[in-house]
């Protein structure tokens, strides 16, 4: 993947449409998932994907952008954008948009509501982590990036990633455990 990314990057700097198309096809699903998990909204996630790729083009045009880890760079941009969006939306009321949910039982409204609550709780727990901890969880746990790529996305040494991961999981445990006993809704 490393060599492929470097080849894409070299061609993308010349604005080769084929390379840019391949980059878009390779990474837009992951960025969309990333946005959905953080923001919980498909429209916002689509915007996040568009804006992330636009930022990539702007960076390439100015001679900047990633030197090696393209995927990590895109996730870092996406995370920053998601943080901005979250700051703007943090004081708006939470509404449960059932049409945006991914559910095991789409025909049962009560199960939909329950699933929505559990997802909101998981998302809320993620937002209570520090920025670096949250990125480690999202990139390693959900997307399966290796430590080198996560380190590149965080702009930190590889050794720090494991420590961040450990602290993130322990923090999630502290955040989730008290309420878990009271409102265990999982089957």
């Amino acid at each position, binding site marked *: 993947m490393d060599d492929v990314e470097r080849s894409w990057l070299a061609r993308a700097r*010349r*604005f080769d*449409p084929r390379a*840019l*198309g391949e980059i*878009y*096809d390779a990474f*837009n*699903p992951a960025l*969309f*998932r990333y946005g*959905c*998990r953080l923001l919980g909204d*498909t429209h916002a*996630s*689509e915007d996040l*994907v*568009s804006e992330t*790729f*636009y930022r990539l*083009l*702007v960076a*390439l*045009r100015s*001679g900047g952008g990633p030197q090696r880890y393209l995927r990590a760079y895109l996730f870092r941009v996406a995370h920053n954008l998601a943080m901005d969006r979250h700051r703007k939306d943090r004081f708006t009321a939470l509404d449960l948009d059932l*049409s*945006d*949910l*991914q*559910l095991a039982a*789409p025909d049962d409204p009560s199960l939909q509501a329950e*699933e929505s609550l*559990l*997802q909101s*709780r*998981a*998302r809320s*727990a*993620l937002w209570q982590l520090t920025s670096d901890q949250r990125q480690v*969880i999202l990139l*390693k*746990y*959900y*997307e*399966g990036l290796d*430590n080198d790529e996560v380190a590149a996305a965080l*702009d930190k040494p590889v050794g720090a*990633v*494991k420590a961040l*991961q*450990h602290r993130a*999981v*322990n923090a*999630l*445990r502290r955040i*989730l*455990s008290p309420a*878990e006993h009271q409102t265990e809704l*999982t089957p």
Partner: protein
Amino acid sequence: MSLQGDAPELEDHKAFLEDFSPDGEGEAYQTVFRTLDRLRAVPARDPQAKAAQRSAFLAQAQSFKEAVSPRRGRRLKGWTETVHKERSPMKVLLRTGLALTVALVGTVTTALASQDSLPQQALYPVKLITEDLRLAMTSEPQQEFDLLVGFAGERTHEMATLAQGGQDVPLDVALRLEQHLRLALQEASRLQNPELNLALERILLMAQAELQILKGAQPQPDGNFSTGAPALQMAEQSWTQAAIDAGAPPPPETCCPAGPGAGPGGNEGQPQPPGGEPHGPAQPGG
């Protein structure tokens, strides 16, 4: 609503748990992972929206390609890679301003705190530097005269405080007092009447008061300066000479060499106040 099927599947979170060694019971961590798994699957995307977005991205890229000529060279930013951080000009400006403000406040605070210091104390050099600066920033003869007689009074006060506290009085302080008085008389000579008369009268009055202070600081009951206090003795001589230069009649020791019969006491060694002088104030520095 269908689920998007291209999310990576991590069986039993093995890849993630390779680097993770839990503290304590595993059940609590299973709860964490079960909760996180609620976000693993995401809604499927609208294919048309996705295709439109891709087209927009490529069109944007094409417009960038056409609009921008190739860069001749890249900006020098090696230093930013060294320190891993590019500083914004505004932050640098704010930090510099803050540093200057802190330095200024610190300097002013130190200077103010030094004004009550005595010789041989840590802040005393700051006090002297402050005085020199004030003097250097003054150009008017009247203002310089005011500063110099003020400094002379301060030196006398310092010496008296040290002597009364049983501490040694450095000779440097007396030398500085002598210098202040000499310069004050020089500045007075640059004044015109009636400011000149007022300045000389002020020196005479100050000399009387300061000599009394110096006498009071003497440990000997007879009022004589001991050989152990040469600085005080020198200070008294400086004030007496300044008073003479300002028009006071010379003390008996000055006009008549002191013999064995010339004892201490009375107004001996003290300049007369200018009010009863038969002659006007003499021009100093002559």
